């Protein structure tokens, strides 16, 4: 195998480029964190009915902030996305719990009304 200076330069250039590419860490996921923050805020105000999902969302948001502080932007972005997804699920679940209860109560009141109606006065 012959060693050519040109080849060596080229390889060096490629190596540098690769190294740069590898070192180039992703930008700080500010936008994702903002989205996650707002989602967790909303869920805090209207998703008390889904405490497990809400707790998970808060935990992940905290960890995302910690990762952000540690400049671990990859983890920060992943945790922020997960926190936002958890918060959205918490809200949806809370809404579904509410509607489920309301429907149950409504059907019960209809049943009572009908029972009253059918009772021989």
């Amino acid at each position: 195998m012959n060693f050519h200076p040109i080849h060596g330069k080229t390889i060096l250039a490629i190596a540098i480029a690769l190294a740069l590419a590898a070192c180039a860490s992703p930008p700080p996921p500010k936008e994702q964190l903002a989205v996650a923050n707002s989602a967790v805020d909303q869920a805090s105000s209207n998703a008390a009915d889904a405490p497990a999902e809400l707790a998970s969302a808060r935990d992940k948001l905290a960890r995302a902030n910690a990762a952000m502080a540690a400049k671990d932007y990859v983890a920060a972005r992943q945790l922020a996305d997960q926190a936002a997804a958890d918060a959205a699920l918490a809200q949806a679940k809370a809404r579904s719990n509410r509607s489920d209860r309301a429907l149950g109560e409504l059907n019960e009141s209809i049943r009572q009304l009908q029972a009253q109606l059918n009772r021989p006065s």
Partner: protein
Amino acid sequence: MNKFTTTLSTLAAAALLAACASSPTVTPQLEQARATVARASGDPAVSKYAALELKKASDSLRRADELSVKRESPADIDSAAYVATQQARTALQIAKAAADEDAIKAAEAERERVRADAATNAADRARAQAANARADAANANAQAAMASADANSARAQAAAAQTDAANAQAQAAALQQELAELQARQTERGMLVTLGDVLFEFGRAEIKPAASGAITKLAHFLSQHPERRILIEGFTDSVGSDSANQLLSERRSRAIADALQRAGIDGNRIDVRGYGERYPVASNSSTSDRAMNRRVEVYISDNDRPVRARG
């Protein structure tokens, strides 16, 4: 240079082939994400109510699949898969909530309908009760009217009975009065009215005008009591022959009967007897006693039977 380029190209192609040949990295989290997204996609309620959330989940799952194909780290794949899973769950929950909310609207309408039915029923019941109450009141009125009519009729009967009693009393009083005027007295054969000797001419059977008052009263009494019958008995004192006295007593009785008939009394109600000097009421030894024996006795029956004769 060309040779080097060729070498690089060959290397790159080999690398690509190698990448393609190797199977993608599939984690349990990714499998769960695929299953959850598939479940959401297959739910008609999700496509109806949560199409946006389903699209987000599908997009996240596609990213996770891309990472899987690129054989990125399982942590990267899992994160994207987790997000896809949560988004699919969110879609399912939103669809369920929205379906519930539609059902709530329908149930509220149903409740209003049932309430309206209940109100209608209550109104019907109230109307029926009012009608019953009216019917009861009408019955009560009718009964009261009947009771009132009964009371009126009872009062009328009582009044009539009082009137009858008063009439009877008045009649009894009138009878007593009439009999008192005739100086009648009760005997076992009936009421006895004695017409004295002074009402006849001496030894004759003609009635003096002075007797007309007594005759008139007697006739009046008999016309007021048409059921009663009378027996007229004539008597003399012991002066004169028996046969003359017998004849005289009969004639005097007859004369009274004729006078009564002239006053309108039916002769069929009258019986006549003469007893001469028999049945004296006094001794015949003095003028005044003999006057008492010269008499006509009129017996008035207590009922519609003939007065029983003497002996």
